[in-house]
């Protein structure tokens, strides 16, 4: 039989998996629906962690927001909630992410630029002014100094008479992916892991509705990894945290139900859906195999998703709305629990109110108009999708074996292994784009000489000036004896094996600043120099 001509010699997924022209039951020879698919809400959770999924409850629409001062961001939060957003997500500025106060010399020029500047409990109180913390859930994208920002959030609630066991939300608190991809750390890996276990233990006892960690593949993908690498490194990081917590004496069922994950939703539609499904199945299987939990919730992978920031283009920025829509659709068909859709201007700056509204509307249109929420895992059983799901899982398991052999993720990071894998994938992708094997509309195809211009959000230098003067005022007003005593207590606790959380909460209540706490911790824990991989 003569082969019909095809447009290309070979078709590959965005991550380089070869894709056949069509799939049949022969591609699913080893696939058993009872074992590999199951029912929604049942092991291995391939179809979703809830029996009814979006028929029961839609995903949480959670736009990542933060810019300028705490009051600027508070206004944006209230606006987003008034527009039907259902959860908050805080973006902190670079100095805050690096544990520096706004008046630190290293913070010059960066205050309030790519997020909100938070140096003290008073800033945090302004950030959440008039927002009912017992009614909304809040996600905080903070890693190196996560425990301190968490302490501030708890202290704000306490001051308002809200019991911390009412608080729901998520702390990103995932340092392993920082060493691997995003590169924002304060200390060497071991003390960071200890702080993470402290927050996990504290949440397990006192803040039961809180997710003390969001194990994140998003940044790994943004750094240039393939979908398989994102899946593999993220889940392996998750297992590393579980191991650290178990080693510290926690029962797996006491904390595993509070773990959460965060994935990227990139351009390759089916590959992304397969990735979400494979993630749930693989996590359930690995947790079962390695830790034998009794509570089924310990096996369930809950996740947030964000559309791929790195897929946005500065050229013809309005095209980004379309890209984001497709990516959001993949995340929803993949069964995410919450979602951030990027605004079309986010490759240029933080989003304007108009752009973020359109991004939120994109989710609302998918939820309200497309009717894809009517049935759970609508693509389940597709020869192609099931085969792709299995290949994603197998690809990740192959990495698991390599990482196990290296002696775990910390050793692998030391050797630069995940970093190198990602860089190679990113290099390969760049070359494909430059050879036009990957089409990017507006960049290497359908280029326009004079690209559209869209308005972008401007942060003024006043933000830094005001923030610096507020801090200087705070330092004059506060009780310096209390400050010293708190810092001393922190230093002592850090040198012991005590849980740091109560000390951090006491310190932020005494108006000790983020930067002051971090520099004391750095005295005890030291700093970190990464092995440079080029």
């Amino acid at each position, binding site marked *: 039989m003569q082969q019909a001509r095809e447009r290309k010699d070979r078709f590959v997924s965005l991550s380089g998996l070869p894709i056949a022209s069509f799939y049949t039951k022969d591609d699913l020879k080893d696939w058993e629906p009872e074992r590999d698919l199951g029912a929604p809400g049942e092991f291995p959770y391939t179809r979703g962690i809830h029996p009814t999924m979006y028929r029961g409850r839609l995903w949480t629409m959670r736009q990542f927001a933060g810019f300028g001062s705490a009051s600027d961001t508070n206004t944006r939060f209230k606006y987003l909630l008034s527009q039907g957003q259902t959860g908050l997500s805080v973006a902190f500025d*670079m*100095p805050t*992410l*690096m544990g*520096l106060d706004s008046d630190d010399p*290293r*913070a*010059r*020029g*960066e205050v309030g*630029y*790519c997020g909100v500047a938070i140096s003290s409990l008073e800033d945090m109180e302004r950030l959440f002014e008039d927002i009912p913390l017992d009614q909304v859930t809040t996600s905080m994208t903070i890693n190196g100094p996560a425990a301190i920002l968490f302490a501030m959030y708890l202290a704000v609630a306490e001051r308002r008479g809200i019991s911390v066991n009412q608080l729901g939300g998520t702390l990103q608190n995932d340092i392993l992916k*920082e060493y691997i991809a*995003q*590169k*924002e750390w304060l200390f060497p890996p071991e003390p960071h892991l200890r702080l993470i276990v402290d927050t996990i233990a504290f949440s397990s006892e006192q803040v039961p509705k809180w997710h003390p960690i969001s194990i994140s593949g998003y940044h790994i993908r*943004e*750094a*240039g990894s393939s979908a398989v690498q994102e899946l593999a490194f993220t889940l392996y990081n998750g297992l590393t945290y579980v191991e650290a917590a178990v080693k510290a004496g926690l029962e797996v069922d006491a904390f595993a139900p509070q773990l959460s994950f965060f994935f990227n939703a990139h351009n390759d539609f089916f590959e992304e859906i397969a990735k979400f499904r494979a993630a749930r199945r693989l996590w359930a299987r690995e947790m079962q195999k390695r830790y034998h939990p009794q509570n089924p919730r310990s096996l369930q992978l809950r996740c947030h998703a964000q559309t791929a920031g*790195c897929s946005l*283009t*500065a*050229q013809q920025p309005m095209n980004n709305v379309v890209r984001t829509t497709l990516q959001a659709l993949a995340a929803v068909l993949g069964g995410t629990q919450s979602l951030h859709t990027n605004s079309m201007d986010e*490759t*240029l*700056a*933080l989003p304007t109110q108009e752009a973020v509204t359109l991004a939120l509307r994109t989710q609302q249109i998918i939820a309200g108009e497309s009717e894809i929420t009517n049935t759970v895992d609508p693509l389940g059983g597709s020869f192609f999708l099931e085969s792709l799901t299995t290949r994603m899982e197998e690809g990740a398991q192959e990495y698991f074996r390599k990482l196990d052999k290296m002696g775990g993720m910390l050793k692998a990071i030391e050797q630069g292994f995940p970093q190198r894998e990602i*860089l190679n994938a*990113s*290099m390969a992708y*760049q070359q494909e784009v*430059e050879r036009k094997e990957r089409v*990017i509309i507006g*960049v290497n195809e359908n280029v326009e000489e004079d690209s559209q*211009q869209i308005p*972008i959000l401007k*942060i003024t230098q006043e933000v830094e000036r005001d923030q610096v003067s507020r801090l200087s005022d705070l330092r004059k007003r506060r009780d310096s004896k209390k400050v010293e005593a708190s810092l001393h207590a922190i230093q002592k606790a850090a040198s012991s094996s005590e849980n740091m959380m109560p000390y951090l909460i006491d310190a932020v209540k005494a108006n000790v600043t983020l930067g002051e706490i971090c520099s004391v911790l750095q005295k005890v824990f030291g700093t970190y120099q*990464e092995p*440079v991989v*080029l």
Partner: protein
Amino acid sequence: MIKGKDTGSCKPPIRVLVGKVGLDGHDRGVKLVARALRDAGMEVIYTGLHQTPEQVVNTAIQEDVRAIGLSVHSGAHNYLLPRVLELLKEKGADDIVVFGGGVIPNEDVPQLITAGVRGLFPPGTPMKEIVEFVNSLEDDSRLSLSAGVG
């Protein structure tokens, strides 16, 4: 800091410092640029992350580089890039060419060029454009202001 070069050329290779200035850790782009320049036969000094303007300028002078390529993704480019140029001038090293990339909105480009940044390469720039820009510096009069603005 690590160095790398591709040998095999008879001319002395151009020395370029490539790095991240400021606090953000987005190093995907800068590493691709470092690799591309190295693959084009240049001697690349990669500073690593979280460099202050002072550190960048000191390294550049110490390493006697022809150009400094800096990546900023945090929005702090309007402070950081002019600060690097200011420090170069203070140290009498303003013959070193500064170029940049990262998340830099179009409307910030003119003021950065006025401050003395010689080339700005937004996301989506083909690597060969950056390689050509640095190669063109070799025959540069060092006083010309023909900026390779992308």
